[in-house]
């Protein structure tokens, strides 16, 4: 699609700047127990995978959604590409309410404009299909263009994804390609639809360092050339630091902190972000001082079927006090576009410097709510 086409669709004002807006998104999965519970449709529990988040993707930005497994980051991405239905919440894409948009035909245009890239290129590609067939498939399924136009678009997409000359690659099979080339094919498969928004779920986690950099650069080049917007889902804060304009940190279905990458990494205002930054691995061997400041949280993220009361991070938080146990903090404004959900930063206060509380790790039951603390 040409730029004029895209501009024509875009409305003026806030809708023009905000490509995708999520308000009050909740995704709850019900757990049914045994066979009887299933037959009687008896609900035995609820997993609150995403538990009330607001998120706005601005046109042309890379927003990194960072979190550990079970944080709800992937579920959020799946809601955006309409692979998972939300329990509650409003979705606005390019100024249009798309919350209730469902069904193959209704979603045809939507799916063309929003594409998904998965983590594992080995599983995404069908080993029996050529590269050409893989990239062509979405065009055929969506009935886009005549045969000759399709061919043209496939070759263009392959070239754009850095597989040059495209004609050389088109009729190869996945096993004939390296890991990096395979992920480029997956990117070409997304590009062929000329999307505006790409949801990339851990797109480079499986790849070696040297290949990873090339793909990150490709993704950023494509943004510059085509004005793409990315939601970059990753567990790796260092990667988010390198690629993202803004970073949102999720924990147990909530956004704990969001803001420009520099602000979130250099001046975290939520204790969870602070801990994540402190343990984020770096190839600079740590000094004794850095080692001492490290906050290694005890235990693991509680499961989303048993979300703690109050601030959901309080059982593992080194600063938790009474209010945190009963009342959930909203996202407070820190300034410069940064927001953090923590009672300690209410009213513009700074987060205290890490105070170390040593716990005997041997006696801690990981995953349990108590005892909480930080060890160094």
């Amino acid at each position, binding site marked *: 699609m040409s730029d004029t086409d895209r501009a024509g669709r875009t409305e003026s004002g806030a809708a023009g700047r905000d490509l995708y807006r999520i308000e009050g998104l909740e995704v709850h999965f019900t757990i049914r127990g045994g066979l009887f519970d299933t037959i009687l449709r008896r609900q035995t529990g609820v997993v609150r995978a995403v538990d009330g988040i607001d998120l706005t993707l601005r046109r042309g930005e890379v927003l990194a959604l960072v979190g550990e*497994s079970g944080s709800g980051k992937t579920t959020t991405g799946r809601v955006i590409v309409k692979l998972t239905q939300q329990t509650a919440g409003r979705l606005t894409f390019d100024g249009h309410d798309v919350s209730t948009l469902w069904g193959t035909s209704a979603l045809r245009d939507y799916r063309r404009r929003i594409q998904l890239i998965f983590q594992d290129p080995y599983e995404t590609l069908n080993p029996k299909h050529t590269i050409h067939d893989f990239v062509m498939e979405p065009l055929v399924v969506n009935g886009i263009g005549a045969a000759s136009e399709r061919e043209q678009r496939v070759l263009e997409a392959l070239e754009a994804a850095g597989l040059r000359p495209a004609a050389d690659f088109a009729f190869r099979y996945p096993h004939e390609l390296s890991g990096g080339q395979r992920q480029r094919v997956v990117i070409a498969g997304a590009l062929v639809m000329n999307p505006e928004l790409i949801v990339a779920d851990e797109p480079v986690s499986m790849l070696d360092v040297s*290949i990873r950099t090339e793909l990150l650069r490709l993704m950023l080049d494509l943004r510059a050339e085509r004005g793409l917007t990315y939601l970059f889902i990753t567990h790796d804060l260092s*990667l988010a630091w*390198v690629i993202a304009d803004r970073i949102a940190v999720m924990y147990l279905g909530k956004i704990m902190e969001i803001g420009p990458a520099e602000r979130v990494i250099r001046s975290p205002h939520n204790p969870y972000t602070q801990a994540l930054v402190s343990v984020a691995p*770096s*190839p600079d*061997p740590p000094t004794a001082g850095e080692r001492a400041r490290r906050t290694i949280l005890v235990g693991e993220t509680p499961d989303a079927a048993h979300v703690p009361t109050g601030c959901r991070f309080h059982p593992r938080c080194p600063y938790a006090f009474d209010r945190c146990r009963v009342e959930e903090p909203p996202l407070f404004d820190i300034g410069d576009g940064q927001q953090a959900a923590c009672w300690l930063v209410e009213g513009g206060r700074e987060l205290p410097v890490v105070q170390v509380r040593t716990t005997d790790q041997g006696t801690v039951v990981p995953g349990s709510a108590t005892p909480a603390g930080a060890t160094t």
Partner: protein
Amino acid sequence: MSIDPRDLAASRDASIADAARADDLAAAAGEPGDSGENGASADTARRTAAVAAAMAIRGRRKWAPPKQAKPGAPLLEVRDLKTWFSLESGTVHAVDGVSFRLDYGEALGIVGESGCGKTTTALSIVRILPRNGRIAGGEVNLMGIDLVKKSENQLRRYRWREVSIVFQGAMNALNPVRRVVDQIAEPIEQRLGESKATSRARARELLELVGIPRQRGAAYPHELSGGMRQRAMIAMALACDPAIVIGDEPTTALDVMVQAQILELLEDLRHKLGLSLILITHDLSVVAETCDRVLIMYAGRVAEEGPVGEVFRRPRHPYTQKLLAAFPNIRADRRTLDVIPGSPPDLRTPPPGCRFAPRCPFAMAVCHDVVPPEVTFGSVRVACHLYPPGSDGHQVTTAPPNAIGPSVPLVEAPPDLPPIEVPPA
């Protein structure tokens, strides 16, 4: 051979004192990170002290080396190791002349990209290779005993008891239909010939040691979280109180916070038990956090080896420089990732000279024809024609070290991003 947690409490304090002494010794001998003679002697002093500390800890637990061990021999010395795989399409020279040493109490990181031979090197130590793999040459001297010369049967004496391995995918390595405690007890029963009851009791002690409550030992692997399973794997590796634990990507599949927990546990165990660690990983940061020395491998050969601080702060080999510049670093400036063009060579037909030459920004004519010799500068060993024998170890090119190739920012400011607007909280 038993590990009593009560002894450990005592030995931990002692080991901290020992470690402090090691630091003093090293400090007296010169600043670590210095190159040249000074760096080498500091490194030697540090290693000597670390060996003494580790031996002291092991001595307190009445650990004894195997009977054939040569007194005074280093714990592990691999010399010119060659491991080849036969394929229909040719012979893959996966490991082609690798040498390194591991001392008591030391942690060595082996780093490289997929296919560089790092895992094969480690598996060759106790010779657990796929069927088409064989050791084609070299020595693996464990306490002076050459394991390459041992028969398969003789080698069983050394697996688990002297060298054990923690694999990456704990879910695949654990038996899904057996309780965790029984799986840990098995090697104790079989290798050390202990009774069932004793083995189980020790297995429970080991679980406690790695931070799993005793009663959780009755769980099946699927009932444990990823971090807990990896802890169970570590407990199993410790079952026969080995001198060396090899971790093959032990934290790769784990969340950042759990990874930090596991790395802390390994560090803790090393000091408590006087263990030596070999950590195989593609993740430079894991090595920076946990290891004393690092061995950078490229296409089956050693590119560079030395103390972590020295190698990472002042990488000499162009591959090491590139690798470090390509690694996302949260403590560095944003978006200055470097790209390494090209891909590693096919190890069925490796290039005749330096294997990195086709991708190297500094490659000279000689690099394409002649294999660079390994040259030692102070405590660092490098295989690169830029540092010929007799040179001072400073790069002889005009390019400033550490800035090979333009380190292009991935992207400048995002295109026309509107001013940041903050929705009401």
